[in-house]
């Protein structure tokens, strides 16, 4: 199950870095690649503790008495809530207000949530196959 969780996690942070890099083009120009790399490495380090949470969510996923196509949106939603909670915790730890009017923070959060959503649906096959093989 850890491998499936890893797939979701790595895909989410890759997508997040890619999309946030694209968003920063207008401000950063060609250095958007640096932004991309920075966001990728930053999320890789910071969100590593979220892996066990993804494993727990996956365990619940396999227990729920719903069709896979109904459970996938549920999993995406739960992970999006987790991501949001992670941002809120980070803001508490750093003592920086989350919605302080800085548009890039709002965009970063929106992009992260979108990335998590996409990552879950992108990992659909490994999720389903894990259930079949186990």
């Amino acid at each position, binding site marked *: 199950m850890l491998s499936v969780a890893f797939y979701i996690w790595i895909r989410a942070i890759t997508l997040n870095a890619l999309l946030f890099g694209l968003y920063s*083009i207008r401000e950063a120009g060609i250095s958007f690649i640096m932004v991309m790399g920075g966001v990728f490495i930053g999320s890789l380090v910071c969100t590593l503790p979220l892996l066990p949470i993804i494993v727990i969510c996956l365990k619940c996923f396999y227990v729920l008495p*719903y069709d896979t*196509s109904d459970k996938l949106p*549920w999993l995406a*939603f739960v992970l999006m809530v987790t991501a949001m909670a992670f941002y809120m915790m980070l803001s508490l730890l750093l003592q920086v207000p989350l919605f302080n009017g800085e548009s890039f923070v709002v965009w970063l959060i929106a992009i992260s949530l979108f990335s998590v959503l996409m990552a879950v649906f992108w990992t659909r096959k490994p999720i389903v196959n894990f259930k079949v093989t186990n």
Partner: protein
Amino acid sequence: MSLSKIYTPLILAGAFLFNIIFWQENLALNALLFDAFILSAVFYCYPRASGDSIARWMLLIHLLCLLGLLWNNTVVSKIAYCSSLLLFIGFAQYVHRSVWFAGGSVVMNFLLFIASFSEQVRNKSKINKKSTAGRFIRFAIFPLLLLAIFFLIYNFANGVLAKWTAQLGTQIDKLFLKFFDRFSIDRILFLILGFYITGSILLRTKLKALEQKEAGLSDSLKRIRMFRGKAQESWWYDIVSGVMGKLGKGVMALKNENIVGVISLVLLNILLLFVNIIDISHLWINFKYTPDVNLFAMIHEGTELLILSIVLAMFVLLFFFRGNLNFYTKNKWLKIGAYAWIVQNIILVISVFIRDYHYIIQFGLAYKRIGVLFFLSMVLVGLVTVFIKIQYKKTGYYLLRVNAWAALVLLVFGSMVNWDVYITKYNIAHRTTAPLNLPYLLTFSDKNLPVLEDNRQLLREREKELNNTNIKLARCTDCIDAILDSRKNNYLKEQNTYTWLSWNLADAAIKKQLEATMSNKISKQ
């Protein structure tokens, strides 16, 4: 229209209704409208609910809470309204007898709403099995990705294209700003919240684990013969054998446990008897308050520890009467010891009541002191149910079930009283026996403003007394008038932002009185 087809339109309608009636409003008359919608929808979608006696009782409790909300509109009444609505949903949608299980099922409704809703939508659109949208997305991903990469390259290479792109970006920004000017992001988020809440209330999950679990539980204990191997797997067994060693194992284990129980209860009863004799002689009969009695320490430390001891006592009894000792033929002395201990604990509860009573008499009413009264009532119910459990061989499930219902009844009672007003009136009326804690009264909600307004002169005098002892209400002296006026103005300003949807009896009466006093003041000037 079949039932499965009606859920989605109902949830959407509920979400819009939620958005219209609750947005920037106080929870009051709008709760009645929301209730009318939700209750009709629940009775329509789950017809079993109308025939279920527990659901009907729960509905009655909920309607009482709604009455409390419209009457008093206190924080407690709001909590009672929300919890009773959710519990009613639990009993209407699932087969439950216990508040705990019904609450658990509603929590599952909230946790699994997305899956339940997705299932509803999928069932509805089963006719269009071959989704063209999915295929379109799969065909479009790769070309769109290529397009984006090459667009970026050309954008960097070509200045004119970059300029146009920047202009396009600005236009899109403006468009978004215009959209969010008209429909604020907060309002959209509130709509989503309404959608989630209404959906979680109306859609039950497919999870039957809690229903099945409760169906297997009974109020009466049954004697189950367990093989030793299986009995050794339980964690109770680990505790008993850990404490009793060899005595807790083997064929004599039950007899030995009975002896340990009798000895424990005899010793505990003797100890508690001493405590109760001290309390009866010092507190019940000969108590006279003198300033050298540290009532604060006596109440706060004493009450907390005594309540802890009573709760612990219940756990000790539950430990001994958890299983086969209930059916042990020679458990007469164990039972007598248990009953004696329950009676002694009831005496202890009365002692705590008396402590709290003395504290209220000497220092007036406060939320914590009322909280102690509520908690002691719960403890009393708990002790009585422990007695019933032992006497009639009831299960732990019975104990939890009955006590949860008792807590719910207390919550309903709590929602029927406007505590801020009650405490303020009581403390002002008893100011000669208990010193008036003016700073504390000013921390209450605006519900006590009319009472404070009626006693303005008295409060001024009290403030002067406090100022003489270096206690100030704010950074100024003689500022009670300024504080009250500012609170009144803020309250009226806040009330004027609400529409008829926030109407409730308490606020309407306060608003009327405050406006009348203000107009009197203006006419005098």
